[in-house]
Each structure stands twice: as C-alpha cells, then as structure tokens.
C-alpha cells in the first residue's frame, strides 16, 4: 500500500533529477581536484570558472544552497525526506557543492539552536548567499585538548567587548571575513562557566593572521591574533558565560564529521590497490606479511562501515545512540591513519616522493603526513577515550 507521501516523494525525486540534469554544468559534476574547484563565497569572492558561477547562481535561485533550512532564513524549506532525496540525486550525478562554507556546516546549526531571532535573520541569509566567508576560532596554543582552558579574553567595556588573545587552527582565516569564537568572559568561576560565543568581523582593527605550515606542507590553517579588538555587544550569541553549551554541541557535530559518519568519499579497497602495486604470485599478494596487515585492516574498515549504518538505523528506530560521537571520532580516525600507513607501505618508493615530478604528484606522502593530524584535531584520540571511559562506561575519576 503506497501512501500519498510516498507518491509525492517519488515525484519530487523525478523533478529533482530532471532539474539537476538540466541545470548542473558538466564541469561541476566532476570531483574536486584543486582548491580552485571549491567556491567559498565571501566579500572578495571570485568565481574561477563560468560554470562555477552558473552552478552557484542556479542553486541559489532554486533555494538549494542550504535546502533544509527554513525559507525565512534563505533555505529551501525541504523536509528531511526531500533533502535526503536531493542529496542522493546530487551524489548520483556527482554534483559538487555549489558553496563550501563553515557557515553552513558549523555556525549555522549553532545559530539555529542558540541565537536570537534577530541574529538568525541577520546572519543566516548572508551565509546562504555566500556573502560572508566564516571561519572558526576555538583552540588556542595553550588550550588544545583542554579547550575549556581557553584564555582569549572579552572584557565588558559598556557598549562593547574588548578582545585580546589568539586562536589557532583557524582554517582559512587568511581568506575569511568573519570568525565565530569562544572567548573567556569570566575568570572568577570554574573554567567551563566563564566562556561565551561571539562573532567577530575580521576587518576590525587589531585582527591579524599567520598561516600555519604543516608537516604535509601548506595548509588552510592559520593562527589568528586579537590585539585590543572592539566588538559590539550584539555580536554575542546565546547566554553570556554559557558558551560551553554551544561549544559541546559544535564539537559533537565536528567529531562525527571527522570520524567519517555521513562522509561521502568512497574509499578504494586497500587490497585492490595492493594487488595493482605488488602483484600476485600463486594467487597471493607478493608481500605475505603485508597481506596479513591488509586483511585485518579491511576487516575493521568493513565492519566500521556497518557500525555507522547500525547506529544510524538505531537512531531512526528511536533508540538513543548514547554519546557515540567519541567512538566514531576515535575509531574512524585511527582507521584512516592505518589506511595511510598501509598506502605508504604498499606504494614502495613511488609513495615516498615529496616534490612532484612529471610522473608522480607526490600525493601519497603528503596525504600520509596530513593524516597524522586526524587523531589530534577535533579532540585527540586520548580525549575521546577519556570521554568513553567516563560518560559511556561510567568509570570513576
């Protein structure tokens, strides 16, 4: 027995498919290869191709930049089911995101949950239209794992806050227009109780940025410095000194993304790569020790995929997925680090090249080095294990 809703959804799928087929330029249906393939918007926005512009504008017109936000905030007002169908159909064609944005992925959810209606109406449509490039300011050099130990201060100066301190790991801060920050607004209380969430225009006097080079080479990360920066009080989001609530909400969200939940990247099977690189003899990989490592890795990778599916399904069926974001972050990133280690080993000296030459883009070694950050960023593996031990297993402290 088909319900009316299902018929509607079927129609929505057909219409969506047709629209995408008609409106998505062919060049926007290819995987992102260079950073110039991503359109980030912002005050100094430049499209790097005509198709990029067409695709963004078509989607903006269709209200599908953030299809699942309410229409009054610039969203498309799609139901979760409709949004799901749109995501599937875009994946089917391989459509790129029309706009890359931490505003959509990170700030938006926080504003929707914690901001005043006025703030929502002020900031959300600008995010959708790609007018503002947002970046994120949580960690500080001395507040990494201990994020709540952050020191960047916002002093109440009557009509404004005076901000001093620095933030690290502020991705794309060198291009961004605004930054959303956790700042200390009270030093006389336990550290979790004196943090607030605030929005800062990067063009304000006193803000400066230093790009960070990683062991893998250039990176979008920056360190951002705030020297007597004045910020209007209306830029505070949520309750004063209750910013930790927002931080926790955002971190859980981030962990799941890093851990691979909801990730769309399809990873090539390690064993297939190994067969290509190492070859077989009598039907077995030529390095029998590596064969063991690969078999164990693929076992875990396959079962981890099933586990994501199981937890998602349990969530749907109403069962609470208790504090599992730490599990996903921990296990997912540890697996990815193992994958990169295997790729280095499987690749032989081809994989060790660092400066590209005509035959080799030196991508394996760079990705390998970059992966070492996975088990650190967004909360180290050790922090995730602490959280599991305490919150899930209720071990004593």
């Amino acid at each position, binding site marked *: 027995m088909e319900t009316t809703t299902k018929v509607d959804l079927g129609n929505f799928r057909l219409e969506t498919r047709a629209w995408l087929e008609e409106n998505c330029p062919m060049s926007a249906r290819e995987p992102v290869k260079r950073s110039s393939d991503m359109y980030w918007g912002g005050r100094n926005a430049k499209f790097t191709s005509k198709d990029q512009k067409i695709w963004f504008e078509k989607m903006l017109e269709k209200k599908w930049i953030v299809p699942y936000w309410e229409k009054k905030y610039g969203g498309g007002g799609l139901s979760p089911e409709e949004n799901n169908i749109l995501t599937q159909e875009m994946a089917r064609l391989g459509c790129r995101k029309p706009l890359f944005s931490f505003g959509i992925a990170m700030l938006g959810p926080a504003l929707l949950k914690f901001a005043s209606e006025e703030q929502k109406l002020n900031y959300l449509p600008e995010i959708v239209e790609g007018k503002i490039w947002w970046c994120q300011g949580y960690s500080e050099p001395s507040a990494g794992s201990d994020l709540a130990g952050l020191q960047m201060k916002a002093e109440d100066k009557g009509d404004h806050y005076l901000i001093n301190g620095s933030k690290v790991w502020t991705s794309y801060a060198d291009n961004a227009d605004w930054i959303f920050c956790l700042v200390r607004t009270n030093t006389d209380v336990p550290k979790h109780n004196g943090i607030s969430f605030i929005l800062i225009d990067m063009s304000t006097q006193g803000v400066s940025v230093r790009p960070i080079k990683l062991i893998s080479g250039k990176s979008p990360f920056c360190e951002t410095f705030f020297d007597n920066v004045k910020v209007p009080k209306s830029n505070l989001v949520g309750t004063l000194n209750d910013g930790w609530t927002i931080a926790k909400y955002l971190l859980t969200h981030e962990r799941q993304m890093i851990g691979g939940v909801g990730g769309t990247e399809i990873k090539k099977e390690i064993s297939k790569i190994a067969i290509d690189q190492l070859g077989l003899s009598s039907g*077995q990989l030529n390095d029998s020790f590596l*064969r063991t490592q690969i078999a164990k890795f693929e*076992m875990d990778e396959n*079962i981890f995929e099933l586990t994501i599916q199981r937890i998602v399904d349990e969530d749907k069926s109403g069962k609470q997925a208790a504090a599992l974001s730490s599990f996903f972050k921990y*296990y997912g990133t540890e697996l990815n680090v193992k994958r990169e280690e295997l790729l280095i080993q499987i690749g032989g000296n081809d994989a060790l090249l660092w400066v590209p030459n005509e035959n080799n883009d030196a991508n394996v070694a760079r990705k390998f080095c970059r992966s070492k950050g996975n088990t650190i960023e967004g909360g180290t593996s050790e922090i995730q294990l*602490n959280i599991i031990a305490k919150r899930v297993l*209720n071990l004593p402290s």
Partner: protein
Amino acid sequence: MPLTLTEEQKMLKEAASEFLLTNSPIESFRELRDNNYQSYDPKVWEGFVEMGWTALTIPENYGGLDFGYTGLGQILEETGKTLTKSPLISSILLSATAIRLSDNETLKAKWLPELMSGKTLMSLALDEKSFFDPNSVESSASLSGDSFIINGKKRMVIDACDSDYLIVVASLDESISLFLVDSKSKGIDIKNDVFMDAGSYSSISFNNVKVPAKNQLDIEIEGKAILKSILDIGAIGLSCEMLGSVQAAFNQTMDYIKEREQFGTKIGSYQGLQHRAAHLFCEIELCKSITLKALQSIDDENENLSQYAHLAKAKLGEVLKLTSNEAIQMHGGIGVTDDVNIGFYLKRARVVQHLLGDTNYHLECIAKQKGY
C-alpha cells in the same frame, strides 16, 4: 532492511536473558563442570524446547516457527553470557540446519520435528585433523547395494557423547556427501574427551559402518554446497555466542574495576585501564554490527552471506581473545584463581574461536574471496 532488531526479536532476546539468568546462571556452568564435566542440564534443555528456541529456524511446513536465524542468534548470544551448556549448537545450529538444507524430503519430514522436540539429539561429524580444514575430507563412503559403507576417523565432534545420530561428512565419488548415521551402528567407536572449556567432544572411528542409502542428505543438490552453508551459518551462530561472552566478560570486568581499590583509589580511575576499557568498548560495538549483519544475511539469503560469516568469526575471534585476556589482567591475582568466574570466558574463548575455523582461517578465506 535496517540493521537493528525487530520488536519481536528484541522480546525474544529479553526473554532468553531472563530465562537463562534464572535457570542457568554462570554458577550452573561451574556445577556441571564440577559434577564430572556433565555435558548439559536436561531440565534447562527442556526449558529451551518449551520456550520454542529449538523451533526458531525450522520452517513452518515442518511444524517450526520459521522465526529465522536472527532469533536463534539472540539465544546463542545470551547463552554466551551465562556460558550455558546445551545441545543447541550441535543439534539445532548445526544438525537441524544441515537437514533443513537437505533435499531429502523423507529425512526432513521425519527428523526436523524430532530435533525440534529436543528428544532426538544429533552432532555434525566433520573435523579430521587438529586444524579446521573442511576442504580435505578423508573419510569415505561407497555404495554397496542399498547401503553406503563409511570408513574414516572424525575428531572434536561436539556433544557426540549424547547424540542419537551423527551427520557424517564423507567423500563420495570425488565429491562430498552427508549421511545421517545412527550413532549406535556397528563399527562406530566413540571416545569422549574433555577440552579446555569443560565441554565434551568426541573422537569417532568408522569401521565399515553400514548406512541405509536413503539416509543421504544430498540427493540432487551438491553435498559441498550444503556443507558450505552449514559452515557459514555455524560460524555466524558461534560468533553470536562469542559476542555474548565478550559482553559478559567486559561488563563483569568493568564492575570489578569500579569496586576494586588499590593505593586508596578505585583501579577503574586509572587512565591506563580506562583507555584500554574504552578501546574494548569500541571493538565490541564493531562486533555487534557484524554479527547482526551476518544473521540478517542468513534470513535474507544475502548473496554476500559467506563474506559476512567470515568477517564475523574472524572479528569475534580477535575481540574475544583480547577481551578475555584484558578481563583476566584487569582482575589481577583473583582473575587467575578458580574462585571467580572470569576465567571461564578465557577457556571457552580459546575453544570456541577454534571451532569451525579461527580468525586466521577466516581472514584467509576473505583474502581468497577478494583475490589476494
């Protein structure tokens, strides 16, 4: 199909948990062991039958519940927690599955109801070497008139001491065939041994044992195909039991380190133990996923059943080994005494991981399936 239990399956699991904790807690395992390694408690087995657990995988047209293997898996998981000894693995998981997969209608019609009733017990006689190697069967059958004559030796046959019938895997005309053999037939010699898990296993020799030709399980279909399915399903069933043991050993260990004090503090507050415990928690989450997926694959007749079976037994073998070792280590001195129960999981772990192939065996199968 969502990767979750249905409401009916959850209810079944809860009922099993309650029944077993009441009628067959882990202390019962100790009693059976200390009572000269008794193989099972007939009262508890009667309870299994009454609860319908022996009928879960039997098709309706043979009087069964046709509830599916996902249901049977929940029972096995719960028995893995209490380490309840019963003929559920030998008679139902392995033998009833063998007969269900047979195309010998006469046998099915006669024996499936018998097995379901719990009154007739059967064992699968497959292993011949010290290692699991189902591709090399040296026991042989040959047709002579209206009987097969079986010769050979079998090892580590589960519960054979109690079984009325043996399902014997033997080579026949360069292929493999399965035969239902009365365990009291002339020429059969059964020697019982006690293994590390306090379980009963037998070595059996077949010396010109005569079996009526109508007792062959595979008529039109390939004996090899039946055997492959039995082994996939068997491996998944054992993985469920292992999942139960993993969880029980882990939970008992968590309880212990929350209570045990040294240096004036609960040892569960030490980060060294906490990180290991949290890692185990993650591994157990993986175990839950693969066993459920594998069970559903039996009931769905998923084309990748075999791959999931290998993954399940490989992963559970690895995690049960890790968990049983960590459980002992975190218990410290008391953990290596027979005064507490935690060591029972260690001993069962090493046997059950071996049965129907250990982690290495199943990884090898996966590697071969994937062509490397």
